[in-house]
C-alpha cells in the first residue's frame, strides 16, 4: 500500500496510529509450525482501527494487543479456525480478510466462477461460428475440379 496524502479527516477515535509501519514484536514460539501459523494468521486478520492494514503491518495499539492474543491462543493450542472465531465474535466479519463462504457471500465467491463459465460459453459459440464459416468457404471437391478446369483454359 502506498499513502499519497496526510490524513486530514477528523478521526472519531482519538488515537491516530502514527504512520509508523512494520510492527515488529519479538515473540517466541516452541516450534516453527506455530510461528508460521501465527504469521499467516496475523496476515489475514485485519486491524479494526486502521485504514486497510492487517495485524502484521500495523503499529496501532489495538493491533499490538490483538497480535498478543493471537500469540497466546496459538500457544494454548487453539486451531486456526478457533483463533478466527475468537476474533470474529468480538469484531465481526470485518476483521477477517478472507470472507467466509455463507449465504451473503455466495455472489462474491461463486459469481466469478459463473462469469468464467459464461466466458467459456461465449468463446465456444463465437469460435465455432467463425470456424464453421471457414468450413463453408472450402470448396467441395467437384467445385474444385471445375475451378481447376476453368483456370487452365
Amino acid at each position, binding site marked *: 500500500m502506498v499513502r499519497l496524502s496526510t490524513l486530514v479527516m477528523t*478521526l*472519531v*477515535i*482519538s*488515537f491516530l496510529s502514527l504512520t509508523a509501519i512494520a510492527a515488529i514484536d519479538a515473540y517466541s514460539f516452541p516450534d516453527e509450525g506455530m510461528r508460521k501459523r501465527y504469521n499467516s494468521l496475523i496476515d489475514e486478520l485485519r486491524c*479494526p*482501527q486502521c*485504514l486497510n492494514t492487517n495485524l502484521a503491518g500495523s503499529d496501532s*495499539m*489495538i493491533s499490538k*494487543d*490483538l497480535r498478543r*492474543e493471537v500469540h497466546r491462543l496459538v500457544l494454548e493450542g487453539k486451531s486456526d479456525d478457533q483463533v478466527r472465531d475468537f476474533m*470474529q*465474535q*468480538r*469484531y*465481526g466479519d*470485518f476483521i477477517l480478510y478472507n470472507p467466509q463462504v455463507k449465504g451473503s457471500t455466495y455472489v462474491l465467491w461463486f459469481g466469478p466462477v459463473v462469469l468464467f463459465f459464461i466466458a467459456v460459453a461465449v468463446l465456444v459459440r463465437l469460435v465455432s461460428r467463425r470456424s464453421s464459416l471457414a468450413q463453408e468457404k472450402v470448396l467441395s471437391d467437384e467445385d474444385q475440379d471445375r475451378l481447376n478446369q476453368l483456370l487452365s483454359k
Partner: protein
Amino acid sequence: MSSLNKSLLIPLIVFILLVITLGVGFSLKDPHILPSELIDRPFPDFQASELHDVDRTLTREDLKGEISLVNVWATWCPNCVLEHPELLRISKEEGVPLYGVNYNDEVIKAQAWLRRYEDPFVFNIVDDNGKLGIDLGVYGAPETFIIDAEGVIQYKHVGPVNRYIFDKEMKPVIEQLRANSVATRTAGVDS
C-alpha cells in the same frame, strides 16, 4: 441509424447498476466506524480490580441491577477529555449510573486524571492489558456502551459523547429499555 442490437445494452445496464451501488455508498455511515458485534449479548465476563480500591474485585455481576452506561476511557486519549463534561452531566442529571473501564492505562495516572477532571464514575474497572477491551470489541477510546438491567449490551457509541449525541441516539435507547422493563414488571404482576 441501424437497428438496435439489444445485447449491446448490457454494458450500459451493468454500468447503471454499478453507479447505483456507488451512489448508495454515500449514504452509508462513516466508513471508519465498526458496528458492534456484541449488541444483544451479555457483557463479557471479567475479573478486575477497582481503580481506587485495589483489593476490591469486580465482575460483570456488579454491572447488573439497573440500566447503566459503561464508558471505555484512558489518560492517553484526548477525546476523553473532550467528552468528560458531558459524562459528568449525564452522571448528575440523567439518573443512569456510569461505570468506567480504564483501558490500557496506568492506575496512578488514571487516578490523577480523575482527580484533575472530576470523577463521574460509580466505579472504574482496571483493564491495564486491554483484554476486557478486546472482549468488548473495543478498538480505541472513548467508546460508550448502554447495558440493560440484566447486563446485556444494547447499544454502543464509538467516539466522544456530547449532548447532541446523547439526546439523539442514546437517550431514546435508555427510555425504550425503561419502558420495556416497566412492561415486563407490569406483565409479571398481572400474570
